[in-house]
């Protein structure tokens, strides 16, 4: 046997553990974070880094990033339509820009450019509106005509002889993708280094309330006391909030996606069509990552359907007919926590020490850094930062929606 193999077999150069071994739960923590997805882990990281709060436990019922964080299609953009939304997602993209360096962990943030196709005059008008709001707030975003679309992404079928010809698009040159589980792992590792405890296989099953506060958290591994509780559980938001007696403006609806077999690189840009309810981009591995709108009705568990694939492909083949011969490799689903106005629900609830980061529906991966940073600020200072105030959980009580039509169309 070659000497070099023997050396490695003896364990002289094993890679280090990425996370410290899991300990017993302590009897109490200053902050208990429910949910070890990207959002919960990012909040833990910024609590420790920005605010020096390290007596923190992240409780995750399964494994890190095993929820929607590792199921999403990883698209990052900020060309939304409401000023509140655009400002928020812009801050997130700013954090993404330097995330690999900040975490010393490669999250593979890759700018590809993003085209939201318009197939009708009405859609072109909406694109103009979005472009104006975007530019006003300093986001690169422009309406382009069909000739420009063909130049930017030659793989698209520009024929007029289809049901929905491409008339133009909203072009967002900074639209990007990132490696979603790396985002969760990067935050987890750096948070753990600063003293945050991460407990996997630990499900929260109830809250003990007293005098309008949560005093302890019941888990499958026993009870822990808590100064404050932040819940970031996406599709399980109503269930967890319900344990604290809080009702949310949320419905849980599955969202599905799929990938093709790997192909040679042929598609540079992220392509989204709101009217056709579909989107596609090609990953570094060559797989086409594809998805569409949420399922037609609510469900509390994810599952894949044939209807989704059929509906998606019917439209996708109009955009890129060559895909007809390409086999699908995998299909999966996650759980989207959908709000009535397609904007998130963030900040404090009616309980004194209960904080919520929810309503992330089909669009929450791109918000992971900003949610973590701003929710950490909210929890540490007990004040809702300005950038979050429009998303308060009781806004619907006064009919103060933040109608985010920029997310509504296909939801990425």
């Amino acid at each position, binding site marked *: 046997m070659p000497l070099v193999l023997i050396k490695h077999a003896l364990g002289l150069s094993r890679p280090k553990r990425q996370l410290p071994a899991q300990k017993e739960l302590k009897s109490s923590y200053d902050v208990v974070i429910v949910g070890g997805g990207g959002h919960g882990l990012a909040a833990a990281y910024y609590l420790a880094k920005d605010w020096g709060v390290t007596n923190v436990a992240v409780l995750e019922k399964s494994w890190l990033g095993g929820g929607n964080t590792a199921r999403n299609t990883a698209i990052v953009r900020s060309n939304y339509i409401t000023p509140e939304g655009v400002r928020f997602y812009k801050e997130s993209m700013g954090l993404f820009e330097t995330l690999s360096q900040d975490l010393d962990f490669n999250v593979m943030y890759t700018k590809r450019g993003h085209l939201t196709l318009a197939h009708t005059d009405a859609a072109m008008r909406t694109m103009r509106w979005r472009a104006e709001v975007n530019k006003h707030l300093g986001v690169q975003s422009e309406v382009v005509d069909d000739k420009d679309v063909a130049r930017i992404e030659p793989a698209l079928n520009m024929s007029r002889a289809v049901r929905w010809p491409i008339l133009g698009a909203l072009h967002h040159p900074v639209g990007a993708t990132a490696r979603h589980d790396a985002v969760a792992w990067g935050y987890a590792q750096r948070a753990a280094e600063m003293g945050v405890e991460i407990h996997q296989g630990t499900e929260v099953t109830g809250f003990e309330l007293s005098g309008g506060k949560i005093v302890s958290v019941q888990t499958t591994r026993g009870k822990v006391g808590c100064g404050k509780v932040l819940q970031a559980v996406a599709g399980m938001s*109503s*269930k967890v909030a*319900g344990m604290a007696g809080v*009702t*949310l*403006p*949320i*419905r*849980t609806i599955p969202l599905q996606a799929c990938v093709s077999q790997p192909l040679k690189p042929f598609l540079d840009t992220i392509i989204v069509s709101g009217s056709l309810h579909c989107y596609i981009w090609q990953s570094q591995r060559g797989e086409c990552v594809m998805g569409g709108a949420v399922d*037609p*009705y*609510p*469900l*509390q*568990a994810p*599952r894949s359907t044939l*209807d989704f694939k059929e509906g998606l492909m019917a439209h996708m083949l109009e955009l890129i007919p060559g895909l007809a011969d390409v086999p699908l490799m995998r299909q999966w689903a996650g759980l989207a926590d959908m709000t*009535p106005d397609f904007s998130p629900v963030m900040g404090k609830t009616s309980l004194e020490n209960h904080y919520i980061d929810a309503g992330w529906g089909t669009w929450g991966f791109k918000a992971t850094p900003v949610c973590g940073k701003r929710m950490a600020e909210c929890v540490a200072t007990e004040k809702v930062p300005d950038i979050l105030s429009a998303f308060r959980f009781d806004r*619907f*009580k*006064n*009919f103060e929606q933040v109608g985010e039509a920029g997310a509504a169309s296909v939801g990425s």
Partner: protein
Amino acid sequence: MKIMNCPLNGPRNISEFAYGGEVKPTPDAQAPTQEWADYVYYHANQPGILREWWLHVPTSYWFIAERDVTTDRIIATFKPEEVLR
């Protein structure tokens, strides 16, 4: 193909139906706005067996279905007048 049994039209493909929300008591027409906001926007959204409004789109017929919202099993469907008396 998933099938739902419409109380008016019999078994039909699920794609012919539209979801209409959990069945819950409707506030009085004169009730404060707050109560209407709760009714319209806030939902229990919990796992379990629920009664929900469904619409058979081609015939515009509204009815009530009992469904396990974790497994997606449709247990029974009713004409509204059988449930709401």
